[in-house]
């Protein structure tokens, strides 16, 4: 029973990822894609949280923290690039 509920939660998150990927593929301009990549990075952290809960292993959340940091740095870099500035301004 519990297994089924975990699978349903993972299915919802996979659906969220699929919608983000649709926007990444379809998005008419570069900022659309950057926004979708940012959201995708946050949704993946949800995956790691649920995996840590399901398996009881805390190292999945280490992955989540690292993923959040890297996603943040990537989004800032993309935003600076879109703004047409260098990374140190």
């Amino acid at each position, binding site marked *: 029973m519990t297994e089924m509920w975990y699978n349903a939660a993972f299915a919802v998150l996979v659906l969220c990822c699929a919608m*983000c990927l649709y926007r990444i593929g379809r998005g008419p*301009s570069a900022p659309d894609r950057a926004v979708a990549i*940012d959201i995708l990075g*946050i*949704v993946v952290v949800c995956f790691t949280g649920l995996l840590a809960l399901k398996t009881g292993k805390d190292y999945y*959340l280490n992955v*989540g923290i690292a993923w959040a940091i890297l996603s943040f740095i990537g989004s800032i870099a993309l935003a600076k690039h879109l*703004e047409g500035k260098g990374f140190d301004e």
Partner: protein
Amino acid sequence: MSEIVGTVLLVAGLVFNFLGCVGLIRLPDVYNRLQAATKCVTLGTCLLLIGVAVLAGGGAAPVIVKALLCMVFILITSPTAAHALARGAHASGVKLWEQSVADKYLEDREPGVTNEEA
């Protein structure tokens, strides 16, 4: 008791995540999509991580500490990234949706230019 609270938080987080991603598909331009998706997904992820911390319960201190750390981190970084992306999108010249009524940022950057002329 804690199981019920944790499950409710988990389901609420999933619902917010799902609605945020629907907004990412359905809304008309970059700025609408950004504000729908970022706020919904940030709240949803925070609720889900609190739910994980509640459901992990007494014997799993590392899971609780790391889930709360992750939550605080996302709560700080996600609005920052969204703000930078909105600035970048505006500076790179993405047009607003044609039914938008005002562009205060454009008026702020270039006084005298209103949305009707631009």
